[in-house]
C-alpha cells in the first residue's frame, strides 16, 4: 500500500498552502508542477503519494475510529 492510502498522508492543496508559509506568494499548491505530492505527518516528510514505508496505516483506520 502506498502513501496515497495512508492516514498520515495529506495532499490537499489548501492544507499544503497553510503548512508551507509563503508557498502561495510565488507559487501554488494548485499547479500541475506539484503533481500530487503531500505531507506525511508521521515522518514530517514531503513526498509523492506513490511512496511506501513501514509506518503505513490505512485510511480506513480513521473511518473506523470516527465511526
Amino acid at each position, binding site marked *: 500500500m*502506498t502513501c496515497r492510502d495512508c492516514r498520515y498522508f495529506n495532499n490537499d492543496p489548501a492544507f499544503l498552502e497553510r503548512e508551507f508559509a509563503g508557498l*502561495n506568494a510565488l507559487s501554488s499548491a494548485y*499547479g500541475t508542477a506539484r503533481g500530487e505530492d503531500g505531507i506525511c505527518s508521521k515522518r514530517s516528510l514531503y513526498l509523492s503519494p506513490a511512496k511506501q514505508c513501514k509506518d503505513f496505516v490505512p485510511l480506513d483506520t480513521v473511518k473506523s475510529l470516527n465511526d
Partner: protein
Amino acid sequence: MEDVKKPMGWKELYLKEDWWAIYLGLGIVIAAIAFFYTGNPFLKSLSVLPPSWTDSSKLVGHFSSKIGWYALQFIFWFIIFSISTRILGFRQSEYIPSFIFLYILSIVTLIIGEYEPLSKNGFEAPLVALILGLAISNIVKLPKWMDAGFRVEYYIKTGIVLLGATLPFTLIIWAGPIAFMQATIISVVTCLTIYFVAHKLFGLDKRFGAVLGVGAAICGVSAAIAVGGAVKAKKEHVSITIALVTVWAIVMIFFIPYFSKFLNLQPAPVGAWVGSSEFADAAGFAAAVAYGKMVGNEEAAVRAFTLMKVIGRDIWLGIWSFAFALIACLKWEKEECETAPKASEIWWRFPKFVLGFFIASVIITVIASQYSLAEFDKVIKPELVKPIKSLRSWAFIFCFLSIGLTTRFRELASAGKKPFWAFTIGVIVNVILGFVLSVLVMGNFWISKTAQ
C-alpha cells in the same frame, strides 16, 4: 477523502489552475479574434486601462466616460475567476470579497503607476503593486482568509497564455533553442554550486541540497516543491527553501531593474538576464515589465524574459524532477526505494499553462501571416493584439499585487546560516553568470531577435 485515494489523472483538467489559465487565456484570444473579424469593438472597450496622466482632470475625465466599461470588466473577471476558483475548491465567501478588494487596489495601483512624474523616475506600476502589497501585508496585516483571492500563480499563468498571443511563434522557434542552451548552462552551474556548497562544504542533507539547488536554478518555489516531493525531502527543508527563494526573489525584482537602469542597459538583454536569474515566473515578470516600462520598451524585455524563463527553464521542470527522483531512488535511498519513479511523472508535472502559451502564439502568428507588415501595424496591432495585451496587463497587476499581499516576512521559516549561505552563494553565481551570458555575450542576439 475519497479523492485523495485515487490518482488525480485527467481530473487535473478541472482541478489544476494551469488548465483554467489555458481556458481563460485562450477563451480571451478566441473572443478577440471573433470580435476582430466581425468588426465589433466590445473587447477593445472592455480592456480599458487608466491612461498616463499628470493633470488630475484627465484622469477624472477618463473615469467619468469609462466607468461603465470598468464595471463590465470587473464583472467579466469576477464571473470567470469565481467559477473557476469554486471548482478548484476555494470558498466563495472568501474569494469574492478578496477579489473585489484586489480589483479596486489594482485600479489604485495603475493610477499611481501611470502618474508620469513617478513613472518617468522608475516607479512603474509593477513596482508600485509590489510595494503597496508588501506594505499592506506586513504593516496593516490583512486576515489570512483573504489569500483566497490573491492567486499569484493563477493570474500569472493566465497572463503568460495571453502573452503567447503577442509573441510570434517563429521567434519561439528561432530563439527558443538558444534560450534553452543559455538557461541550461546557468541552471546546471547554479544547481551544482548550491548542491556542493550545501552538501559537501556545509554537510547538509543531500535532499536538502537538491531542493535548495533547484529552487535557485529552475523555477523557484514550484521547482522546490516538485523536486522536494520527488526526493522525499523533510518538510522543514521545503519550508526553508520557500523562505529563501521568496526573500531573494523580492530582492531581485528591485535589484536587476535598478542596477540595469544604472548601467543604461538595453531592455532585451535585461529581460534575458531576468529570465535566467530571477527565481519565479511571477517575480521575473514583475522585474521584466518594470524595466521595460522604465526604458520605454516593455515588449522587448518581456519577450526575452519569456523565452529564457518559460522556454529555457520552466518546461524542463518535469525532467529535472524525474532525474532527481531517480537519483534519490537509485543512489540515496536504495533500501527504502521500493517503487522506481515513473517517466509519466514528467508529463504530469509539466507546467501545462505553457501549452496555452504555445497555442495562442501559433493562432495569432497564422492570422498575422495573412497580412503585410504595414497592415499588421495598422490593423492587427490596434484591433486584435492591443485588447489582448491590455487584459494581460490586468492579469499581471493582479499577480504583482498578490505577490506583495501574500508575502509576509514574519511568517517565513527562519533558514539558519548554512542553508542561507549555500543558497546565497548560488544566487551570486547565478546573477553574475546570467549577466555575463545575457548581457555581455548574447546581448546583441537578444536585441536583434526581440526587435522582430
